[in-house]
């Protein structure tokens, strides 16, 4: 077996081990732990990029390495690295838990990397749980005011329930098709068209992933977890974890491609409800992270639009959008955690006067927010328009109309952020940024603009990748 096929996973396994030893140390060395974790995460991204064009199957065909999975692995590695970048100041996590914090982030990444490569039901489940359990621990790791406990318990319970649904669904699929390999299940799925078992099994299976992506009706955890978790953990949940969920949903939804009306209609309804609910409830939020939680529910709805098409272009735009979402959402969260220097929850109005406190952060915030709102020439605009285009190609006129109207609704609460940052007078002094943060700001801003204006390279890559799945 070529080691490179399993390269990124091996690397992150090793990285987890190193961090594990750090956590055993009696003397707490915050700085050293941080730099080690950051360095390893950077190396991990390089490894993931190096393995981008690997191709093959391992572990008795349960594990498929192709461009599709490798793109998402690179995205996950990037997500981890970016989260590490803003973890210099972990104000709300006790110093002696810092190593654990990095350790669980790494295992979570490892789990998600395995998730995007798994093409066998049990492997999918195990990988999913590996990533979920790490997050169950990370969420309540924040010290404080009881909010963290509520968040942790909600996340665990809703996660456990949706895992239960998923297992139940996997059982149905296995029972009806006598296989746990996706490649064997797909040709047998049409046989189940006449009975509801296939459809029910598939929808229940997807439930576990809808939980990750916070699609209605598995979104209830999102606002509380976003608000209660440490800023860095939430950033990770809001970026990398979503990208991984999109990848697996794209793989699993193919099981239902032949189902036509009943399956797609279910997804259409979920998509519409998610984006409408998310956008409407986000309007009344005062807490910045809560608002972003509802906006993430809405974005989950947008991504589903691409899934519903079951076509190359739709899938490619869903991949593009997932990657775009990672970048733009991270940008907003980075600003959030830079402004919340002591790790507190940030009210939207606490962004007041950011334009004079730190013009650079304001620029990033505006670009990130506008990208989320789908304003050109950002990556979010292009992504959304590509999604709508591919859905319209499949004749979903009403879905696109509702999506477009939702875009208008969402603009209202995104503009409230812009309003606070640009218009309100500052109540605190200027913010000092370290040079790596400055560099990160510039990089993210240019990424949002460059990939928004020149999307071709990324779209072509995504198209090549999704051909492996279709």
């Amino acid at each position, binding site marked *: 077996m070529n080691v490179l096929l399993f390269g990124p996973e091996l690397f992150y396994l090793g990285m987890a081990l190193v961090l594990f030893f750090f956590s055993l140390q009696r003397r707490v060395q915050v700085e050293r732990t941080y730099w080690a974790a950051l360095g390893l995460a950077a190396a991990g991204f390089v490894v993931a990029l190096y393995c981008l064009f690997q191709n093959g199957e391992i572990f008795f065909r349960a594990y498929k390495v192709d461009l599709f999975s490798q793109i998402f692995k690179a995205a996950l590695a990037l997500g981890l690295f970016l989260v590490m970048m803003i973890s210099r100041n972990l104000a709300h996590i006790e110093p002696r838990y810092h190593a654990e914090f990095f350790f669980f982030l790494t295992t979570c990444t490892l789990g998600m990397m395995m998730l995007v490569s798994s093409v066998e039901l049990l492997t999918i489940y195990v990988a999913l749980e590996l990533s979920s359990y790490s997050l169950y621990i990370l969420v309540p790791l924040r010290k404080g005011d009881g909010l963290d406990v509520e968040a942790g318990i909600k996340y665990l319970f809703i996660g456990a329930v949706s895992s239960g649904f998923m297992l139940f669904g996997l059982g149905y699929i296995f029972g009806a098709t006598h296989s746990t390999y996706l490649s064997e299940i797909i040709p047998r799925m049409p046989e189940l068209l006449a009975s509801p078992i296939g459809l029910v099994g598939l929808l229940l299976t997807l439930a576990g992933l809808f939980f990750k992506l916070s699609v209605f009706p598995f979104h209830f955890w999102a606002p509380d977890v976003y608000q209660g978790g440490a800023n860095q953990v939430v950033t990770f949940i809001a970026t990398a974890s979503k990208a991984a969920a999109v990848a697996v949903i794209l793989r699993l939804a193919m099981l239902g491609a032949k189902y036509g009306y009943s399956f797609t209609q279910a997804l259409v309804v979920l998509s519409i409800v998610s984006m409408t609910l998310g956008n409407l409830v986000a309007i009344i939020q005062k807490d910045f992270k809560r608002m972003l939680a509802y906006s993430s529910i809405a974005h989950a709805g947008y991504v589903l639009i691409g899934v519903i098409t079951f076509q190359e272009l739709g899938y490619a735009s869903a991949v593009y959008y997932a990657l775009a979402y990672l970048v733009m959402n991270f940008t907003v969260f980075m600003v959030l955690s830079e402004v919340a220097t002591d790790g507190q929850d940030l009210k939207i109005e606490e962004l007041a006067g950011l334009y004079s406190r730190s013009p650079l952060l304001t620029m990033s915030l505006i670009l990130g927010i506008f990208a989320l709102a789908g304003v050109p020439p950002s990556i979010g605009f292009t992504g959304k328009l590509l999604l709508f285009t591919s859905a319209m190609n499949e004749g979903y006129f009403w879905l696109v109309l509702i999506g*477009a109207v939702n875009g208008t609704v969402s603009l209202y609460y995104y503009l409230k952020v812009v309003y606070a940052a640009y218009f309100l007078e500052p109540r605190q002094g200027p913010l000092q940024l370290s040079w790596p943060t400055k560099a990160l700001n510039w990089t993210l801003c240019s990424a949002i603009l460059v990939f928004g204006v020149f999307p071709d390279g990324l779209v072509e890559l995504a198209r090549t990748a999704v051909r492996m799945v279709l």
Partner: protein
Amino acid sequence: MTEHLASFPYLSCMLLSPVAGLFILLFLKEEQRTLIRGVSLVSAGMAFALSIYTFVAYDKQLGGLQFVEKYEWVKGFGITYFVGVEGMNAPLLLLTGIVIFTGVLTMWELQDRVKEYFIFQLALVTGVFGVFMSYDLFFFFLFYEIAVVPMYILILIWGSTRKEYAAMKLTLYLMAGSGLIIPGMLLLYSSSGIATFNMVALHAVQFSPWIQKVVFVLLLLGFGVLAAVWPFHTWSPVGHVAAPTAVSMLHAGVLMKLGSFAILRVAMYLCPQGFQYWAEFMGLLAAVGIVYGVFVGLAQTDLKYVIGYSSVSHMGIVGLGLATGTVDGLNGAVFQMFAHGVMTALFFSAVGFIYDRTHTREIHELGGFSKIMPVASAFFITAALCGAGVPGMASFWAELLVLIAAVQVFPVRGLAAIAALVVGALFALRVVQNTFFNKPNPKFVHFEDVSPFLGLPRMILIGFLIFFGIFPQTMVSLIKTSIVPFIKGM
């Protein structure tokens, strides 16, 4: 349409010069005000010069689409970067150039957050240039949105009079319009069967009548919001009043034209049968807008509101011209877009100057202002005369063309529009009288008149108004080169 490739990327340069200015500004410090203004002026000036060049160098004998640049952009979705100039957008590019250049000069005295102001203004104008020159639907819409969104920040920070309300209202109205445009535009794309956003290629496709009807009305309403088509105009007077001077100029002068231009360029061009079906409706909305704008404008006491409502009625003339679907009507409509753009820019520029000094725009407070600032008042009065349609000004010819066509096609609506305009002219003169020729307000006696440098932008605007008033043929013959084939293709 014949396409003539550009020997040099004039259009891309026009598009990129504000972008380049914007990026330079990003790296300047707020304190370097003179440099910031200088950079903005140079980048606006380059765009202005290029827009004059394309206007003059357009070969009327050759016709068709000139200065074309075409690059494949996103292969998978059939998106191309496709820009060009023809008779109907050359005047509008020129208009944008004029307004941005004079706009930068008008804002020369700005003291508050100068750097950010010019960054957003240049971003906005990039979008405007982009819309006027794009022949690819994707880019058209992309630039359209770029032109709309910076308005929010521009009004919010540098505006006046209920600016928070106005900024949010304007943005949400316009984005709601986008919510209709996206499905309409994508329906065309997906039902064409050729998977391209290239408008010239889409024009060749015969869409089924019901698709044309659905798409046309979606686009008409969606773009109509920006064109301040009655009854979706309510954001526009509020927005104009709240916006800072140069933004009002850009907005009323250029941005509203994006809406009507898009109706012409996208909706009518791609859905001719849809247009036939909805033309009556469109004419009705336009005529109501003309009458409504004139009469509501009469009741206003704030000068900017007067102009805001007069814009609604003047944009109604554009709409009426488009609705006729005749050569004269379309000619007049495009000419009116240009003339009204320059005229409103002059209006807002003049009012802005007065407001900066006196901090009031109330007609009765200003009183006999021409005795205090004769030159500043003269700018406003010239604009008012132009708005009233006095011969010798550009808008006279434009309105004449539209109204002749309108009376032929929709006699009742046309006559109603003429009646409304006559009443409007009457009252415009009363506004002028009350504002400028009554007893001067002693509070304002000590103000100095416009210096030659600050008067320069207004002089440029007046120059264009009078030039095209005296030589309307230069404009009409140019517009005609594209309108005649346009109507044939419908």
